[in-house]
């Protein structure tokens, strides 16, 4: 039955299988996985990172905006803002795809007006100047502008902001002047966009600083990084390495690693799940999220953010709520901080068996699809022109039984073979991530499943084995390299990026899967501070 099913794979559009996508040639895995269209070839790659073209202008995300506000106005205790229009490139929150609509601008306007009102109210902390002291006000404008635009103000900007200050000051003195200035700066393209000058093949010092802050902090440059940029330190490999090491030792890098791992596996969607009203579930989503965050923080600090450790670690960190949820006793466990124990949970390993992941992704199809896409960089087409009613299900039928019908079906099987077998090992966990031996209809459950990759089929008997197998697979490693490309260059991988992805993959391998060291090596590559000129294959250039 399996052999026949594998034969059907070609019927599934968007076929992700490494060997199939490249016509069975080996050595192409790094770029062929999941890249639509013609796969690039790594035959010509030197291993060094080449300059990458078309790094897009992008809007700051909510996370970056909040970091930027902390940097621009360190004196203020501002609320956290959430921009409704954060969007994604692949799995990551990156605003580089969409056109900017009036709704985006209104978002920034309401943020700017809110912050500016606070600036006016606390002007003695932000910019302590007397009414009429123009020199003092001008210095404050320069400082705030420099931090907000992540580079010094140019003459036109300075003139414009000083004129704006004068208009405000005429209405209500220094406080009103600063209010006008803050309101304008926070809506200015220099603040809301990350833009690299496309006319220059080498990035400006300040653009390098922003690339580094985006990559290592998912934020903006702080004062030390801006100073390093101003001193020309970031043009040298040693200078960049020194700053990158400092930044990775900064607590802000934990925020970045959390975002990277959580967005990778869809865990940032946990708060959106809106658990049912049942009072006993109140706070459970938070507890799940906290567990995962603690676990990621530990992986980040103890293993340099190793992605294999993330998938396979035999431990986690539970509070009493999660200990209860997992049904384990913490009496003999190590209490690593107050009310938090390091535990081994039988039958679980790594982030994919934590309740947070299982509560975001439900059922064998969606769990399998998530792994197929996020961990193996595959894509699976949605059913089109297929009568889904052709598979009869009945009340009380187990998910496994339904899956088997899909896999055996002549039109459904091709695609579902890529999903269901990866999701079925998680059947022994319910929609809240609790372990179970039978489903709500009383069907006995097992964790049997298998991984289809290339011409190979790997059988597993539970989710832990599945995680171990995925962590060992070349396809997953290649996929992580692709994700790091997207994380670094804030756009999708294109065929012409083959050597860049290859280079990142080599760094990842050389660092045994440690993400932080890999990012450091990417930054230390000479071409990190370059842009390739527009690719001829893209067309449409003026």
């Amino acid at each position: 039955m399996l052999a026949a099913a594998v034969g059907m794979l070609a019927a599934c559009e968007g076929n992700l299988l490494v060997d199939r996508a490249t016509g069975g040639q080996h050595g192409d895995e790094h770029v062929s996985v999941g890249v639509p269209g013609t796969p690039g070839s790594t035959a010509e790659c030197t291993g060094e990172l080449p300059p990458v073209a078309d790094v897009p202008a992008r809007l700051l995300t909510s996370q970056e905006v909040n970091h930027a506000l902390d940097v621009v106005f360190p004196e203020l205790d501002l609320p956290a803002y959430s921009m409704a229009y954060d969007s994604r490139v692949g799995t990551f929150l990156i605003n580089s795809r969409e056109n900017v609509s009036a709704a985006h601008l209104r978002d920034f306007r309401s943020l700017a007006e809110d912050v500016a009102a606070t600036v006016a109210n606390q002007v003695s902390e932000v910019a302590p100047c007397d009414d009429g002291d123009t020199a003092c006000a001008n210095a404050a404008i320069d400082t705030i502008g420099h931090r907000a635009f992540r580079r010094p103000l140019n003459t036109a900007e300075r003139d414009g902001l000083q004129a704006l200050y004068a208009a405000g000051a005429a209405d209500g003195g220094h406080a009103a002047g600063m209010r006008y200035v803050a309101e304008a700066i926070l809506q200015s393209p220099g603040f809301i966009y990350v833009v690299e000058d496309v006319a220059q093949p080498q990035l400006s010092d300040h653009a390098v600083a922003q690339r580094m802050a985006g990559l290592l902090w998912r934020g903006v440059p702080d004062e030390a990084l801006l100073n390093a940029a101003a001193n020309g330190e970031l043009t040298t490999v040693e200078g960049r390495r020194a700053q990158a090491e400092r930044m990775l030792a900064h607590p802000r890098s934990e925020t970045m690693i959390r975002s990277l791992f959580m967005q990778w596996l869809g865990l940032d969607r946990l708060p959106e799940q809106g658990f049912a009203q049942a009072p006993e579930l109140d706070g459970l989503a938070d507890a799940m999220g906290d567990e995962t965050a603690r676990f990621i923080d530990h992986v980040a600090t103890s293993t340099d953010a190793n992605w294999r450790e993330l998938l396979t670690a035999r431990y986690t960190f539970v509070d009493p709520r999660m200990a209860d949820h997992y049904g384990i006793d913490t009496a003999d466990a190590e209490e690593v901080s107050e009310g938090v124990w390091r535990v081994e949970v039988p039958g679980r390993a790594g982030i994919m068996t934590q309740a947070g992941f299982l509560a975001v992704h439900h059922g064998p199809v969606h769990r399998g699809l998530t792994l197929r896409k996020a961990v193996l960089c595959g894509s699976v087409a949605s059913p089109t022109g297929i009568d889904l009613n052709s598979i009869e299900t009945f009340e009380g039928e187990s998910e496994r039984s339904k899956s088997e019908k899909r896999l055996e079906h002549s039109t459904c099987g091709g695609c579902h073979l890529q999903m269901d077998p990866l999701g079925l090992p998680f059947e022994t966990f319910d929609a809240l991530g609790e372990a179970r031996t039978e489903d709500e209809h009383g069907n006995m459950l097992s964790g049997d499943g298998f991984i289809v990759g290339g011409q190979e089929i790997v059988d597993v008997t539970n989710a832990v084995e599945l995680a171990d197998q995925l962590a060992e697979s070349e396809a997953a490693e290649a996929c992580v390299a692709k994700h790091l490309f997207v994380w670094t260059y804030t756009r999708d991988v294109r065929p012409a990026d083959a050597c860049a992805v290859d280079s990142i993959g080599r760094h990842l391998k050389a660092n045994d899967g440690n993400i932080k060291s890999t990012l450091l090596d990417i930054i230390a590559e000479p071409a990190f501070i370059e842009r390739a000129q527009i690719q001829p294959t893209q067309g449409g250039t003026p």
Partner: protein
Amino acid sequence: MKVINRKIDRRRFLRGAGALGAASLALPMLPSLLGAQESGTPKRLVVFFSGNGTIAPNWVPESSNGRLTGMSTILEPLTPHMDDITVVEGIDIKVARGEWQAGSGFHAHERGLGGILTGQNLNTGDMEAGSGYANGISVDQFIANSMEGQTNLHSMQVGLITNRHGAGWYNRDTMTYAGANQPLFAESDGTKIFDRVFGETTGTATTVRRARDRRASVLDFLREDMSRVEKKLSSEDRQRFAEHHTAFRELEEQLSRPLPTCEAPEGALGNWSDQSNMTAISDFQIEQTVRALACDLTRVATIQYGKGLGALSLRPIGMSDSWHSLSHEGDGNADAQQKLTELNRYIAGRFAKLLTEMKSVPEGDGTLLDNSIVLWVNELGKGNNHDHDDVPIIMAGGLGGVFGPGGRHLQFGERPHNDLLITLCHAFGQEVQTFGRPELCSGPISELLA
């Protein structure tokens, strides 16, 4: 994730719908404001969307000789409105079929959602299966354009849990288009809608004027500033930035319009994605929309419950299943059929709430509903086979006598929905011959009109 916590003192926090009393909806009439702009009562269009198809056997109402005589299980909440609604069967979104699309393999949800209001196919693009955005303007935007400048806001796009899908799925997120490849996305954050719709109309005259002066000065600076950044951009990014200009002009234009004085609703604030609090969120969004229409801040609104395929689960009715997954279950799965019936019935209840609110606003000799046309649409017909035939459609309101009376059950046979879009255009005085793909257009559906 951190949650926005901005000053919201003019609204009070409430969890349930109970505090939104009908009394607070009794808006002052604004004859002088309306009269200054044009004669006669304004006409409004509201499009209400829910997805994943329906369960036809539980949707079709009882009727006799084309008159409704009783509601079905799903439509039962509409019983009090039976005389105001027309249930329409036999309309197909033919343009959503593969043969009309710009590429093969585009997904059923996106094809349906992109086509429902545009009457157009999807173009090719860089989204899933090589699909792109719809190839034309949506009917709500077309009609809003025809009334351009008569109201403070061009149109409203209200969302219920319309948080965006990941990149590669954006064409699954919206049904409204300003033009070919120009999607407009619904806003599901009620606070943002509130600020956009009512933000400028509250406060004293002096504070409003001072805020406007400050905004005008800031816009002057930003206008200059925009041109400076542009020089650095790639051609691709420059196209995106052109949209920034358009968006910027919209803010400028809003600032130049006269200020209506309008009573803003009070409402539920907090987590706009909390599906277990859906009824209260929905009530607030409906009330905002109805207020904006009643106050003539805008005349065109869309209310989108989830997206194509739907981010919605069954949490609004106290269950945790995924709506979309459930809609894949076969007809023989009685449990799934029953849950989907309940959920669709729940949505019918929200639609009933919209009608109730619209009827509670007196206008001339009738109500706001009498002067509006409200359309409930879906991107699919039947959920489990993803077809676009016989999509469930309900119309309500007469648009001031332009449409025929309610209480009817009309059955057509495989009529392309483009004709329904043409009918809407005609009703708003736009006598177009075609809307969307011309090949699928034969003309307005006369049976719907008075």
